[in-house]
């Protein structure tokens, strides 16, 4: 089902906004994790843990789901389709995987924030956790940059499904032409 141009642009606007927002929120998360990593102040480290949990719960997770859903809608509503081109298919796989990994990491982040709120954190543990958050956020940024690059470059290559689909459409058009002539 191909969407009307206005609807397609609306879906695309939502997708670009949520995707860029996701990237920005992860960048903010990374900044907090980096500052928390280098800070010697335990109070600051606790504050950063709490802030990171808030950003994750209220910004990163909703934007990740919004990006995934709007991406699926945008793909299905255009001739690109969701499974016709490798770059779209890979974007889908990366987005789904990144969202799943994010959800897996949400629980430890919440637990860390809960621990921080209770004032139980120790310096060495904070350092180790912050280091891992820096690594995770950096990996997420690389994944999101890859998604952006795929969207911009749209490297060529049609999947077997796309090729079959294309052949079927060509055949049906040829039959219709033959019938009308």
């Amino acid at each position, binding site marked *: 089902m191909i969407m009307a141009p206005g609807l*397609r642009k609306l879906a*695309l606007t939502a*997708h*670009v906004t949520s995707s860029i927002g996701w990237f920005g929120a992860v960048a903010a998360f990374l900044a907090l994790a980096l500052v928390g990593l280098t800070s010697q102040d335990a109070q600051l480290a606790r504050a950063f843990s709490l802030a990171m949990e808030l950003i994750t719960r209220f910004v990163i997770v909703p934007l990740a789901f919004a990006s995934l859903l*709007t*991406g*699926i809608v*945008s*793909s299905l509503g*255009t*001739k*690109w*389709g*969701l499974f*016709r*081109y*490798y770059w*779209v298919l*890979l*974007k*889908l*796989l*990366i*987005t789904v*995987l990144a969202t799943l*990994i994010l959800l*897996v*990491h949400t629980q*430890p*982040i919440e*637990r*860390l924030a809960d*621990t921080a709120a*209770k*004032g*139980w*954190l*120790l310096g060495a*543990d*904070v350092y*180790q*956790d912050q280091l*891992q958050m820096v690594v*995770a956020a950096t*990996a997420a940024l690389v994944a999101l940059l890859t998604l952006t690059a795929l*969207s911009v470059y*749209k*490297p*060529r*290559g*049609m999947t*077997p499904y796309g*090729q079959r689909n*294309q052949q079927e459409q060509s055949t049906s058009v040829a039959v219709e032409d033959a019938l009308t002539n």
Partner: protein
Amino acid sequence: MADSPSYPDADHARMTPKRGSATRVPRWVKVFVIVFIALVLLFVALHLTGNGFGAHMHMSAIEQGVGQQ
């Protein structure tokens, strides 16, 4: 996920793979998938060896913290 079609609509014939390579997977996809799988395996390995996020890392902090209360 996909913006306005530039090549599905614009010049379909030009973008259609050549007959001989119609079913071939492009090289960039192969490289991409190999790198992707390697990174996923690295990620899983890091977690299984206890270098990733995990309850065990945080529980030790909690337990030590509780001990200090």
